[in-house]
């Protein structure tokens, strides 16, 4: 498939991204660069200086809502992408409403309790939509431990063991690897296995 053919196929696709932090912002940008038609991005948080060690935002965007800053950044990279942004906290009652109609959903939360709530709700309420989650990417090095596997319609990207902690911060290289791996899985689902 040429890049033109890839863009043409992706132009009709819609991807939902839950969370616009380290995983979500980088995954969204990767999908925007290759020409995804529509992104549905959801986050309620604002950008802080500590986010800039891994998230696709700029120093002069500190204090802005993440969804609005990400929409602006995507627009500067590829204005052809339609971005629907929602500045709300995702809860079991609004997940199906916000992500219904997406071809793929990307889980891009930070905290494990939020991941559990989101994954459980998507599997229960939107079982036919493939869900790509990020699991385990704190620290640095250990490239070879990062992998991707599949349980039914659920795709897991990460090393599945490196949890964040005081001596295990989430930082750009490994968070970037996993977020781009998630974007890569999205392409495989939308374009087929190469």
């Amino acid at each position, binding site marked *: 498939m040429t890049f033109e053919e890839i863009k043409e196929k992706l132009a009709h696709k819609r991807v939902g991204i839950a969370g616009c932090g380290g995983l979500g912002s980088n995954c969204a940008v990767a999908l925007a660069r290759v020409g995804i038609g529509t992104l549905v991005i959801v986050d309620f948080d604002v950008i802080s200086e500590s986010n800039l060690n891994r998230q696709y935002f700029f120093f002069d965007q500190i204090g802005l809502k993440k969804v609005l800053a990400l929409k602006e950044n995507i627009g500067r990279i590829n204005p052809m992408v339609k971005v629907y942004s929602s500045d709300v906290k995702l809860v079991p009652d609004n997940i199906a409403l916000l992500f219904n109609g997406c071809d793929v959903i990307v889980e891009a939360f930070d905290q494990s309790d939020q991941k*559990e709530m989101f994954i459980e709700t998507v599997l229960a309420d939107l079982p036919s939509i493939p869900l790509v989650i990020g*699991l385990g990417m704190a620290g640095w090095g250990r490239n070879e431990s990062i992998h991707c596997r599949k349980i039914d319609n*659920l795709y897991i990207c990460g090393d599945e063991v490196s949890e964040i902690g005081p001596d295990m911060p989430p930082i750009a290289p490994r968070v970037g690897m996993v977020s781009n791996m998630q974007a890569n899985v999205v392409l495989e689902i939308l374009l087929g296995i190469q």
Partner: protein
Amino acid sequence: MKINLNNTFEVFSPESMTVSELLKVKNFTFRMLIIKINGSLVKKTEYETTRISDGDEVHVLHLISGG
């Protein structure tokens, strides 16, 4: 019973057990989990009542923070 737990066959002496019992026997102490039995999600509120029996395919995914 013999079940496929996280892609490995394992044998347990009871003929069946609840999800909660399995988590205890396996010492899966993580609080944040996603569990599927034969392709179907088992919600957290159903761990006490959902039973696992011979031949079942069980996935227990441990959720950790970071992103």
